[in-house]
């Protein structure tokens, strides 16, 4: 029976996929452009984004507090040696931190913000090891605790040593663990397989428990069976909060502000205005050529040189090259190979953007 259901699901899935493909293909694809919308300035957009009035605040609060009844179960499962994995739509940062600071007061808690771009996992391990070591030291004041004080400091030890230290069997109590909260364990800073391997090994350490959240629908692809069954040992919890991803989305580019014409032209204008008038004029030559020859790959370097010489903008190939290098460094100009083999220069902006830009620097 279930196998059949599975087949149906599978079938439904593929059917949906092809329907969607068909819809995209047959129905005349909308050719409307973003630039048709009167887009507001990025600065303004960011301010507006920060002041969006939230919807359903009351209901969201109620939903969040309804999860409070689960806290004892979560603590119980952590103590039983499982990791907790929270998923569902909405930012779970506040929820997990509330859980950690109300129900896990007996345990030390370290928070990793996985939504950030760069996380040095080794620093996390060092901090954890120091924390464990301090705990052990305060616990065993009697000299019988044979902590080898002559050991290397943690920050010069290797990853393996740190993990081995965290995995040492606990002598008297097997309940004294440190809880690591990982917001967005599928986040950009933790997404590579090496970091996930380390996290998995960390999760399997006897002194560590992990509470993590995922938001990406395909997050499970990060883990293989060894990690899932023997290391992370997740207990899944579906806890949609519908809270806005405020912090998590902080570093995502705004779709209406990035990559569109206005933005490219604006940065280009800023760069150009800081260059010499001669350089600006060289750029203008290139831009005018591109606007008048929209179908060509770009302007051949030779052409540019002759035109510049004619207009007394560059006296030699060397001076022209120095300008071009400047342009390329700022990605104002790119080269590509013409069909007849010679190198062409072009400006990676749309015609409208280019016109706007020329207006701005004139």
């Amino acid at each position, binding site marked *: 029976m279930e196998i059949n259901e599975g087949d149906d699901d599978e079938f439904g899935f593929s059917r949906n996929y092809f329907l969607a493909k068909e819809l995209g293909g047959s129905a005349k694809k909308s050719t409307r452009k973003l630039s048709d919308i009167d887009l507001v300035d990025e600065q303004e957009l960011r301010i507006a984004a920060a002041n969006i009035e939230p919807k359903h605040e009351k209901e969201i609060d109620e939903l969040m507090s309804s999860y409070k009844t689960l806290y004892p*179960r979560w603590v119980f499962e952590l103590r039983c040696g499982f990791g907790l994995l929270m998923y569902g*739509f*909405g930012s779970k940062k506040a929820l997990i931190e509330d859980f950690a600071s109300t129900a896990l007061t*007996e345990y030390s808690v370290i928070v990793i913000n996985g939504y950030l771009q760069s996380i040095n996992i080794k620093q996390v391990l060092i901090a954890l090891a120091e924390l464990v070591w301090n705990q052990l030291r305060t616990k065993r004041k009697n000299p019988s605790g044979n902590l080898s004080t002559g050991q290397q400091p943690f920050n010069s030890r290797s990853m393996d040593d740190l993990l081995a230290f965290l995995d040492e069997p606990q002598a008297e109590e097997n309940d004294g663990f440190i809880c690591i*909260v990982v917001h967005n364990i599928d986040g950009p800073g933790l997404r590579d397989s090496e970091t996930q391997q380390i996290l998995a090994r960390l999760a399997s350490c006897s002194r560590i428990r992990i509470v993590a959240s995922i938001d990406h629908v395909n997050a499970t692809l990060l883990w293989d*069976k060894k990690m899932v069954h023997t290391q992370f040992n997740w*207990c899944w919890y579906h806890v*949609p909060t*519908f809270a806005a991803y405020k912090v998590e989305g902080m570093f995502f580019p705004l779709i209406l502000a990035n990559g569109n014409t206005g933005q490219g032209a604006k940065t280009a204008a800023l760069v150009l205005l800081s260059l010499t008038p001669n350089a600006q004029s060289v750029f203008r030559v290139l831009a005018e050529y591109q606007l008048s020859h929209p179908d060509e790959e770009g302007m051949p370097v030779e052409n540019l040189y002759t035109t510049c010489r004619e207009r007394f903008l560059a006296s030699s190939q060397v001076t022209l090259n120095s300008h071009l290098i400047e342009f390329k460094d700022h990605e104002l100009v790119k080269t590509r190979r013409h069909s007849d083999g010679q190198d062409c220069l072009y400006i990676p902006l749309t015609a409208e953007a280019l016109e706007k830009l020329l207006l701005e620097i004139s």
Partner: protein
Amino acid sequence: MTATKACDSASTAPESSANDNIQPFYLLHKASTPRNSGRKSAAARTIDLSPSKPSSSTTTTNPQFDPHKAFQSVWSRIDSAIKDVLRDVNTNVFNEIHSWVRQSFLAVTSSGVPTFAEATKSFPILNHATSKQLFTGLVLIKNMEFVDDLLTFEELGLFLKSHACHVANLSSLDLSTKNGVGGCLRSLLRQFLTVTLDAVDISILASWYREYGNPNSPVIIIVEDMERCSRSVLSDFILMLSEWVVKIPMILIMGVTTLDAPKTVLPSHVLQQLCPSKFTLGSPAERMDAVVEAALVRWCSGFSIGHKVAVFLRNYFLNHDGTLASFIRALKIACAQHFSIEPLSSVLGLLAEEDSEDERVLALSSGMAAQIDSNLASCLTELKRSQKCWGIVVMCLYKAGKYSKVQLLDLLCEALDPDIYKSIASDTRTRSGKGFEISSSSNHSMAQQYLRKDGPISQAIEKVRDLPASPLSQLLKSWENLTVDILEINVKVKELQPMIKLEEGKSLKQDFTDLAKRHTSRTAANIKESKTINEKAATLLANLVRDFMRPIECIPFHEIACFKDVEKLQSALTGDPRRRIQVDLLEFHEFLRCKCCSRSCNIPLQSMPDTSIMYTLAQEHGDLINLHDWFQSFKTIVMNPSSKCRRKGKQSSFPKKRKETNEHENKSESSLQARLCRAVTELQITGLIRMPSKRRPDFVQRVAFGL
């Protein structure tokens, strides 16, 4: 940023939460109470689900009432039982490997031991070509997944260590391109010398072996998952080992899924260095049966599962990934959930302790009975007794079913089904008027008519009917051993034994007199007689099923020991983020329960969360969504609260020219665009859409289709 910095910032955590949001990591808080004092009472306070009076005296004198302690004691019993049986499954192979290791070691060292100076020189001097041969054990794993065999190789390492070998375990992670041969060496030295060195060289290992190693012990290197290793690194590693094998008696053991794996993975000049031997591990089905027997049929821990859970576990095993590891994990989650949900379950912790003292005592000790209600105690005694009988009958069935390849897990599912038992029991009562009476004369099909025709139980009983004499006698013997604790059953089985002996004697005589014509020489009477014995055995089994195989769910107070909540188990075991997150967005109303959006039927409303509106709109598009259109339809919905009815059914993304009331005009364009940006970012975080590419700057791509 250093760790101390992180800790410093954490000390002022409450004020600087905004700052914490952009720290890669920080300390939220340190453990509040000093751990070495009052630990247990604190734990009991946090999760006080037990009905016992939480006075300080009970917590200290009777820690078992803490559900966590109860879980620990029960799970540790299940866990050790599982580990034991898995070890037993492997014992033969391990012994085989050990004797091979000894032989290889002799072969390696037979060419003479090099002097210390020779042995630690960084360049090996070779005497003759054959001495470069590296003895390699290929351990065949009968499972596509390595996860089930991680424990096996760990156990193998321990086993060999206990037989005076130096052992190091490597995995494919050590033999990866990133780590290179240096990485493997580092890992080896870590395991043998227990230090981490920056500069690694195999001569260090050689001098270590000379100085500290036991000269009578081989150095064994176990590579768990050979096929997942980097080819070049593994080749280099093997070449290096083979060059040093004269100086360090090294023996390699590799886990493989197919026997020709070395040929496909390694180049020929590396293969020449290997001197392979093959070993085969037990099959997954064999191990599964052993685990089910240890964990669920023999009532070793007191924890048990209901019929639905058993069926779910079986389907999960068969359809999900077929690994034992996932099955055991599922069982552990079930166990943990049982103790956190069921308040009386902590009594099981006591039961488990009780058991460890004396396996055969069926009654609860007076000490324990005093602690819990006497009524409950008697029920528990009954529960325990009945479970023991049930387990024995299931094992008897399994022993018979083995001849027709019945899997224990299937058998378990049927044996746990309360409906089958109820129908059998009610039927018996109406016919005989008595519930409990073994009457061998009763119609055997009576019990069977309620069992599934091709179900494992009827299969097992049928098999008994067709079994030839000598397997039948073995079967009866195994039954006798199984039932030794329960006198009533044991007597019945013993009654059959003399008959079978008689039968055996006859057939043996026949074997001697005329082996070739055995079948033809059998007299009709003989056949008839043996058939009656088969018949009697089958009837006995059927009666056992009828009288003793009471599924746990039919016994009062089974809730204490039996976990039945399939939904909870399923949701904890496998999240389904792909589906669930989409459902969250599309049917958010189920969770938020607001009044404003309740009327919506897949039509986006103004009051809905922006991301839900956007995702609902995205459903109308193909795999590409035009941003402009998307924005316009979003705008229409958000600006126009009453549009719902009129827009119904129309999927046009172009806003109709309509006289807008001016009340919403004050919603500035910028806030609208910002809301769209936020919604798109959130969809991007959930991975449901992909950002526009350079090639198609005006389109976002949908990633998920359908639920």
